[in-house]
């Protein structure tokens, strides 16, 4: 299956701003991050020393935060749009 990744601010500079990602069917957020964070720099950006997603990392599936879904076990579907971004800082 193919999902669309949109990453913003510094995350976009590390991961790429917008691109399609091919994953195995029934992949979840955890599996997606394994692919996205293959490099050490990208891993350190998203995960802390204990391997948990950093508090300031927001991950949304189709506009919904994964915390309101099944967290990193949120299952992905073909055509999903996943947004990854740090805390907002507009205004």
């Amino acid at each position, binding site marked *: 299956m193919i999902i669309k990744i949109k990453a913003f601010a510094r995350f976009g500079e590390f991961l790429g701003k917008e691109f399609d990602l091919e994953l195995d069917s029934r992949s979840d957020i955890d599996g997606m991050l394994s692919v996205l964070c293959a490099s050490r720099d990208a891993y350190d950006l998203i995960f802390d020393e204990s391997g948990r997603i950093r508090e300031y990392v927001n991950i949304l599936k189709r506009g919904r935060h994964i915390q309101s879904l099944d967290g990193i076990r949120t299952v992905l579907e073909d055509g999903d749009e996943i947004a990854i971004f740090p805390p907002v*800082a507009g205004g």
Partner: protein
Amino acid sequence: MIAITEEDFNIDKILKDAKHPDNGAIVTFLGIVRDDGIVGMEIEAYTDLALQELDKIEEEALERFDIRSLDVIHRTGTLSVSDNILLIVCGAPHRKDAFAACEYMIDELKKRVPVWKKELYKDGAGGKWVGEGTE
């Protein structure tokens, strides 16, 4: 009007449009690029979600305060010092609601709307994203 755009906005026209007969007060907030030793800012938005969130905040403001018009325009792209970033225009029969709604709008926007700012330095050495997890 709620908008996210690279184009600058015409404040006079927006104020003129806000002069509805029911309005006795119009409060305007204009955010501009401050010179903190920078040459400008790059502003990025998750536009689809940002517009949805701005719509929600607008609905909340209309429920909480007696206002008759609300305009919010946030710019994106590369801006120079003193360029306009954000315009909020609240029209209400009375000033207290206009002030309160304008403050509510900017406070909630800063907390909830997916927009990010990168400070651009004079020495040409790239820039720095504003906020936790962005630098």
